[in-house]
């Protein structure tokens, strides 16, 4: 069951490569949060209730609902255009996306052969999420897509940490979540300011400072 969810999580990334509207990105983000929640729920044996409560809060409430809702609000309020405006065309993006996928599965296959302790499919798909969102950040002009792809990168890192059986102490988990939350909040504040001050939301407008 969890393997199916992992594969679905991976396909959301392919969908993002093909999608051309910003709202699709936000919906994907919410979907990823829910998939992560399902993954956590399917694999809870041996965790304390405090840990479970925290993981539910992190995945379902924050990653799945609050942050996407918050970003959707930012998008609607600023009335930004709907297109994502990539540098490379859709076709080449998909081509590169598929290449990243192949790499991810090779990594999963390879990691299944070496020492125990990693869940291969988790490992491979999390690498796909991380590399693909880094590629998307480079390939998109809009600042709002940068924030959305940053969240996808964080989802990938969360999945990667799920693939390792070693548990981080609770204090660290809380800290990471707090950082992420404040980070996205600040991103949105700065995004609003950029929108009103620069009268635009392309990364190309931020070129005043240079030598």
């Amino acid at each position, binding site marked *: 069951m969890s393997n199916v969810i992992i594969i679905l999580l991976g396909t959301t990334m392919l969908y993002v490569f093909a999608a051309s509207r910003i709202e699709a990105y936000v919906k994907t983000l919410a979907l990823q949060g829910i998939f992560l929640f399902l993954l956590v729920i399917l694999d809870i044996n041996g965790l304390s209730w405090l840990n479970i409560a925290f993981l539910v809060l992190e995945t379902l409430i924050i990653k799945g609902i609050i942050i996407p809702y918050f970003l959707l609000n930012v998008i609607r309020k600023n009335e930004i255009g709907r297109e994502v405006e990539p540098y490379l065309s859709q076709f080449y993006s998909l081509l590169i996306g598929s290449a990243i996928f192949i790499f991810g599965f090779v990594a999963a296959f390879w990691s299944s052969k070496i*020492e125990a302790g*990693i869940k291969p499919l988790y490992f491979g798909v999390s690498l796909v999420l991380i590399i693909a969102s880094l590629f998307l950040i480079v390939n998109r002009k809009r600042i709002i897509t940068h924030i959305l792809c*940053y969240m996808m990168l964080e989802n990938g890192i969360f999945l990667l940490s799920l693939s390792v059986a*070693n548990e981080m102490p609770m204090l660290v988990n809380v800290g990471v979540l707090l*950082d992420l939350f404040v*980070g996205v909040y*600040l991103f949105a504040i700065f995004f609003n300011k*950029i929108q009103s001050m620069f009268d635009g939301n392309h990364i190309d407008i*931020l070129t005043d400072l240079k*030598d």
Partner: protein
Amino acid sequence: MITILLFLPVLLGVVVLLSSKREITRIALLLVPAVYLIIVICIWSGINWIILPGWLNIYFSFDPIGIYFLAVMTVVFSASSIYSLFYFKEHNVSPQKEAAYTVTNFLFAASMAGVILSTHLALMWVFVEATTLSSALLIYFERKKSSLEAAWKYIYICSIGISLAFVGIIFLSIGSKPVGSLFFSDLYKHASQINPFWLLISFVFVFVGFGTKVGVAPIHAWLPDAHSEAPSPISAMLSGTLLNTAFLGLIRYQEIMVSAHQEYFSNSLFLITGFLSLLISAVFMLQVKNYKRMLAYSSIENMGILFIGIALGKLGIFAAMILLVAHSFSKTSLFLTSGNILHLYKTKKIENVNGLLKKDSLTGWLWIISLLSISGMPPFPSFIAKFLIIKAMFTMNLGWLAVPFFILLAVIIYGMGGSVFKMSFGESNFDGTNSKLNFSAYAGQIIILVLLLIIGTNIPDMILNIIKNAAGFLN
């Protein structure tokens, strides 16, 4: 004590935010660095007491290198806070904004103290990210278009970089399964059990992540923008303490590499990025038109030299530790003085500033003396540090590295010195009014330069010991 270091700024921050009265804000602004100073002196002289809660002591502790970094940070923090009083006055900052500035500054300082004191690798990561978030607001403090651009680049580039560092930490936790924990002490003790493959991969990620925060080339893009657009006391904090704390993260990681006998790999990375940083700052130093950006490139240069020092064995590490305090203090003095210049001339362009010595002689002399200090002229400690680094190159049989090292340093000093002297001498192109600045515009710099002179000429045993202990951390 750790409790006070971490929670006092937060607590006072809440008080300041609630009252928003000018007097309370300013008292708090000076109180926190004063308390930090007292605590550092107590720890230094061996006094330590523990206040509840006890579980904090698992996650935070004072070790020799941490005390050293905390001491440097505290001095810079104090000087920057004194200067902030002048900054508030000169910019007519409203009480609400003063309170906001003070609170974010406290959060910034507390998160840096957290980085320095953490005993757990991932917890340290949490605090490094917290420093990014709190300082981004300070960079945007002047609410200008350019400062918004700088703050956005800073927070975005550093967040991505730090995320990659977290990927590295997860890779390390895959490789360190036999160790079973990410506490530094466990990692050092059982370093030989860590799988070398995962250790090397994780080092690359952590190096890129923390290296972004340190601001070494080629991942330095945010640094000149952020340093030039932040208010001057914040630029001093960024350059004098933030870069150091991220550097401390790399030193702690390097200790794992050394304990696992993988230091050949990490040393080569340190050396390559170090020289690349020198090259980048030499190239830009010759064409830079903004004096605060010039200081930022000098920070890249000094961080590069620190990286080179770390890679050169015992002597190099000792030299790096001396350079650390030399750079932090001189750069703080330079950035604070650049705030005076900005106030006097209302421009950041080098070409529009002339005759600084005539306009305000004390600012002019501080500007020149700080330049001598940062460029490594005797009797300042930067000279000793650079001398020792060259000596370390020869003892490591890497003497040929001294040639590019000298050439690049000469280019940098030529570029920087030319600009500073051009600004200081000549006729003042403004009206003859000799505008007086108040005492808090000079106090911090003077104290810091006197401290540097003491360290450079006749170093007290107390300071020498703490530097030796810090350098002895890596072996």
